[in-house]
């Protein structure tokens, strides 16, 4: 069984005037690291937003974990019930909450008991090397530290699938390369399925086990990537 399935998905914006996706089908197996690679405007972020549930496909269907979540213009399962993790391009760390508050938010929303929350927050902060920063606000952190908090916030919920939307695009090359390795380390530890969007070929080849190349709303090629750099 595939953990993510897109079947003949099309999507247009601006009341049909701008076609973002044209009849795209994609199947992703459990534990895969799939990178969608393509230029700006090719529809790669639209795929992430469809899988997350922020938008509905005009036609076609989407399944997550074997369950139909969206079909023909209708969101069947809303994002908050899909149990996915996501790291946004702008990271979307809530500026009014501390690092701990950012990580704890999802745990509270899912009704996790306080004792367990404390343990999970401590563990994840240790894992991303941010244990000493739990009381800081996002604005008091460097770009790399914010990146780690965003990862921790997504991973603390132990999602089966992690969606990442060009999360390293704003970082300098050295930090970018270091964090790629960190993402791989975390993926190995948690064994989540990774759906990663980027326009950077090097990033794609470093991370992916499979690369999906897109252009003008269509998948134009797919490649197995046998030797990701660890």
């Amino acid at each position: 069984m595939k953990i993510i399935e897109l079947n003949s998905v099309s999507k247009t914006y601006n009341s049909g005037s701008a076609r973002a996706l044209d009849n795209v089908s994609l199947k992703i197996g459990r534990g895969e690291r799939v990178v969608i690679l393509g230029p700006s405007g090719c529809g790669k972020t639209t795929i992430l937003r469809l899988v997350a549930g922020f938008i509905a496909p005009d036609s076609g269907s989407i399944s997550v974990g074997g369950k139909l979540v969206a079909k023909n213009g209708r969101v069947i399962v809303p994002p908050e019930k899909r149990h996915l993790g996501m790291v946004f391009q702008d990271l979307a760390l809530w500026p009014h909450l501390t690092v701990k508050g950012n990580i704890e938010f999802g745990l509270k929303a899912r009704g996790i008991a306080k004792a367990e929350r404390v343990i999970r927050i401590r563990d994840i902060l240790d894992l991303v090397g941010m244990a000493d920063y739990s009381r800081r606000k996002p604005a008091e952190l460097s770009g790399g530290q914010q990146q780690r908090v965003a990862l921790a916030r997504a991973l603390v919920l132990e999602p089966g699938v992690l969606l990442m939307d060009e999360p390293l695009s704003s970082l300098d090359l050295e930090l970018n390369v270091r964090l790629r390795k960190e993402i791989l380390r975390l993926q190995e530890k948690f064994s989540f399925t990774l759906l990663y969007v980027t326009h950077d070929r090097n990033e794609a080849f470093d991370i992916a086990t499979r690369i999906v190349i897109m252009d003008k709303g269509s998948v134009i090629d797919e490649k197995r990537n046998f030797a990701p750099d660890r």
Partner: protein
Amino acid sequence: MQKRVFLAIIIVLLLLVGLLPVFSMLVNSLGLDSHFSFVAYEGVLTSRHQWVLMGHSMALSSIVTVFAVAVGVPLGILFGKTDFPFRSFFMFLFAIPLLIPPYITAVSWFDLLGREGLLAPFMGPQLTAAAGRFLFGLPGSALVLFSTFLSIPMILTMVFLKAVNPRLEEAGLLASGWRGVLKGITIPLILPGILLSAILVFLLSFGEFGVPNFLRYDVFPVESFTQFSAFYNFKAATAAAVPLAALTLAILAGEVWFLRKKGSQLRPSPDAATAFPIPLGKYRRLMFSSATVLGLVLVVLPFSVLVIQSAGIKNYVEAFNRAGDSIVRSILYAASGAVLLTFIGFFTGYLIQTKAVKFWRTIDFITIFLFALPGTVIGIGLVSLWNRPWANLIYGTSAIIILGYLARYTALTSRICATRLSQIPPSMEEAAQVAGAGWFRRMILIVAPLARRSIFAAFIVGYIFSLRDTGITMLVYPAGHDTLPVRIFTLMANGSSRLIAALCIIMIAITIVPAAILWAISRPVAGKEMT
């Protein structure tokens, strides 16, 4: 699901509170003994007197609009675009007349230039008579409404200037000086904002009845008020109010059509903070002196007269004795109105900003339409809808006043909240959604805290406008529930000028204190949230 149901409730509430009264008024004006009839309109449309009144209204609002835009836009550019000193102080100074009931400004000018005014002993009988002729009539009404609404084009110009991408101006600066850039790039880009401000000034001065009534210049909105309050001819009152509603609708629809064509949006440019101000250089002193003189004449002078007239503890003791209950009620009603306006405005702003429903533009248009509608029209609409035996719990209590505030001022609080919400990246709410949070949790724990300054600003603006309201409250207040602006208005007929001046100062004080708080917090807002 939570989101859809809740926003649907907010929409239904808006329609019930705002549109239904106007619709009820329209239906009422067409019914005679349960039969469809235009009889009520015949009196309005065939009378020459009514057309003269309409002409007066047009003349007054046109003059006010021309002057307010001609002075307000340069002031907005001066305060929003240049290195003019003490900009925020001057902005606050010129906004003061807008924050209080306009007739209070009229009272202050009367206390200055009137027969028994402060200047009368120095001017001599002939000059005093000339000043009286100036004040009582078109010029005086225009002066008062000009000073009241001057800050609308000023503020909207400043807001729209924030939406101009500084890179566009910098590109122009490579080929021309600032004068050329302003003329060829900046002003054409903010033209929709100038147009919007002109329309608002025109409609607000067209619907104003307190000032022309006090300065004895007969205008159209006074007619429906008089028909209702003096003759209790409800059908004639509604028939007189419907043309006002139709005119407002037509002008706003034209504005929406124009703005949509221009594709303009009231959304701050992300690069606005990096814009550098225009150096005034050798003109700085001249500009500062001119703005100071204007502020002294339009704001400081008339309100100082009220302070002088009301001087003495005795006047204030009498004021509290005669209107203490109205003062307390005013604050209570305005605070209650502000809480509800903030609540509904926040969610209306949210649904407009996130385009949560397909007809979000219609919702936005309805709120603006209700704001631009004369207060007397909304008042008559509320009476038309709620003056029924089964609705006594609303019509016979202060609830009817609060409904009036909600109907008219939701546009202000929703726009304030929508502007801030437009600056919050959608990913903030989406991140909470992916984390498993339902809509209410996202609203309470993420969106509202991120918009907290704007929510507070919306509360203060809601409070100020509810507090200054005269047109609606005058028509709908139940016995024993009058507010301070209404009490002052009724006392003006037989109260001493010292008592009126003292009441006006109290009115200004209970308005200005929260406005000053807003001014204080809006400075960090301008720096942090608006950029």
